[in-house]
């Protein structure tokens, strides 16, 4: 029993490491594509690895107090925890042990740890930045939670692994609930804090908000945290709506299926990331009131429409996937 | 009400400045220091409610500072310069910031750059310059080249061997 537990742990570690590498790669690709949209040459794709290396190799690191260390610890640890609970490429890591509601609350651990660390830096810019981040969170959570509710009601399950199973057997989420998928993608833009919603990390207004006092190894680990959260948010969307990239049934094809599903999953999260990046490259930044009013108007209406559709299909038409 | 008429009512002799180009009409009058406030109040209540600038001229040869209060009227579209002369030794005058709030800033600058004392303005002190230790720099008898050489050339270069120059 211990051996397959070790294999399982090894595989989880491999998947987490791959997720981090993909995250950094995606940040590099995003900078390259944004540069090309602005008719610039843009940095090499592996630029973020160099930045990470430089940050970790800094000779002096500044810290304010012991609460300041919460940010990198909870940030990195928390994001790895979320990645462990998120099926990647059909490989159900821990999501068999925890359902979507647990995942929603684990999403808050790194965010809260990061907020504590930046609050402890004593810089008023950081306090304002965290306030904006929490207000933005309240705004995009409204459509996002309604979308997740409609998925749970339609597929009649709250466990992510069962949801993947049902999407494989029946219909992908995006085919069954297209309206909810649209609302989820709009909410995703705010969740990833991509422009027009990069209000918390606004370099021009509040000197990069919560990150104002982080440098050196702190900023390096927080870069790993943001790389991880890119993979988390994109693969959350893929798992909920695009069947988690499962094309070949693992029980039938065995380990080959895991490779193919992983590649399909990678392609799908790349597509979702590209949507976010293209929107990011061309939009200016909203003010926080505009972002709040925006999210509680149209995306919420779309999400409610998706909820009504899911409710009608599952209760009245008796469609059970 | 026209500027000339106000000057007549105040009994000030004024001159109409001849300026090249089609500028708006400009009048200049020299006022006794104690009568200045009353003149400004009169102008202010008759349309000249825009205080443009307060400037100080250093007449070093006849040992006098000239404070020029520049008013403008949007209705009449006319400029008025009321100026007073202060002795150069200890220039002292009362503050007029209660008439126009922005006068306080001009007074702070003139105090720092020329050394004119304005009683009643409690915010004089350090304003633009930082840790200034010499005479007010805008006065004509201040030698800026000598000061620059004394203050900045004398700072030694950092050198591994120790102090140089």
């Amino acid at each position, binding site marked *: 029993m211990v051996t397959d537990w070790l294999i399982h742990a090894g595989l989880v570690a491999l998947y987490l490491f791959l997720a981090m590498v993909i995250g950094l790669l995606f940040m590099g690709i995003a900078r390259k594509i944004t540069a090309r949209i602005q008719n610039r040459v*843009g*940095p090499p794709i592996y*630029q973020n690895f160099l*930045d990470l*290396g*430089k940050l970790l190799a*800094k000779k002096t690191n500044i810290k304010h107090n012991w609460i300041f260390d919460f940010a990198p610890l909870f940030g990195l640890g928390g994001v790895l925890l979320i990645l462990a609970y998120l099926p990647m490429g059909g490989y159900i890591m821990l999501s068999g042990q925890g359902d979507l509601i647990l995942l929603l609350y684990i999403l808050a651990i790194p965010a809260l740890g990061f907020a504590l660390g930046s609050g402890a830096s004593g810089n008023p810019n950081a306090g304002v930045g965290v306030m904006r981040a929490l207000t933005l969170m309240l705004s995009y959570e409204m459509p996002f939670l309604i979308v997740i509710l409609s998925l749970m009601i339609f597929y009649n399950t709250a466990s992510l692994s069962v949801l993947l199973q049902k999407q494989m057997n029946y219909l992908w989420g995006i085919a069954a609930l297209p309206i909810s998928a649209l609302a989820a993608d709009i909410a995703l833009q705010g969740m990833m804090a991509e422009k027009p919603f990069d209000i918390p990390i606004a*370099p021009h207004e509040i000197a990069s908000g919560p990150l104002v006092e982080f440098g050196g190894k702190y900023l390096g680990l927080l870069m790993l945290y943001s790389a991880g959260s890119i993979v988390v948010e994109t693969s959350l969307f893929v798992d909920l709506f695009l069947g988690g990239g499962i094309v070949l049934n693992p029980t039938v094809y065995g380990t080959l299926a895991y490779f193919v599903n992983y590649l399909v999953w990678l392609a799908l999260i790349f597509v979702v990331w590209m949507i976010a990046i293209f929107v990011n490259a061309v939009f200016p930044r909203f003010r926080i009131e505009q972002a709040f009013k925006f999210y509680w108007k149209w995306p919420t209406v779309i999400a409610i429409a998706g909820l009504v559709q899911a409710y009608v299909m599952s209760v009245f038409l008796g469609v059970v996937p | 009400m026209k500027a000339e008429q106000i000057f007549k009512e105040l009994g000030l002799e004024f001159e109409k400045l001849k300026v090249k180009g089609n500028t708006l009409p400009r009048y200049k009058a020299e006022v006794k220091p104690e009568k200045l406030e009353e003149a400004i109040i009169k102008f202010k209540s008759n349309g000249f409610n825009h205080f443009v600038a307060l400037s100080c001229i250093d007449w070093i040869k006849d040992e006098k500072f000239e404070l020029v209060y520049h008013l403008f009227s949007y209705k009449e579209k006319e400029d008025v310069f009321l100026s007073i002369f202060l002795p150069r030794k200890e220039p002292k005058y009362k503050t007029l910031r209660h008439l126009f709030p922005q006068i306080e800033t001009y007074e702070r600058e003139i105090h720092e750059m020329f050394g004119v004392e304005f009683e009643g303005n409690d915010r004089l002190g350090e304003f633009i310059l930082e840790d200034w230790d010499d005479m007010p720099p805008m006065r004509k008898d201040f030698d800026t080249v000598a000061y620059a050489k004394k203050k900045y050339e004398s700072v030694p270069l950092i050198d591994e061997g120790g102090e140089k120059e």
Partner: protein
Amino acid sequence: MNENPLPSIIPDKEWKKIQRMLSKRSLWMIHFCTGCGAMEMPPVMTSRYDMERFGIIPMATPRQADLLLVTGYVATKTLKRIVRVYEQMQDPKYVIAFGSCPINGGIYWDSYNIIKRLDKYIPVDMYIAGCMPRPEAIMDAFLKLMKDIDEGKANGWMRYRKYYDQYRRNQMRIFKRWDE
């Protein structure tokens, strides 16, 4: 400011070379636009010259940055802020001074509140001459700085730590109070 001493045990030259390569390839810049040089930065960032292809991106705070750009004349008031920002940056850090004003005071050679030579107060790794250098000159300066870093010549930050007391004495000659 007692930085922890230089890490004495650097395992080998290889590690230092890698470290220099990394800090060369990802110079994060904080831009202290003191004078008229600020206008030269947008062309360097945008599509015509694009400094980001060398990994140089503008950052908002000194904590995150390792390259300080002083672009223009430095008044005594500004010098106090520049020194404070420079000290909040983390090692290894580099300074580039734009234009002739930081070199010898430029057109303000006789002014009473412009410092004449930035090098006396904070260690400058690279000067760019010109009464506001064109973007080509700035790009050339970036590349030269990267070459210096690679060869280990750009060690202004080591000089600042080694001769900290001399730098502090020079700074105190210009302004008397530090905490204001």
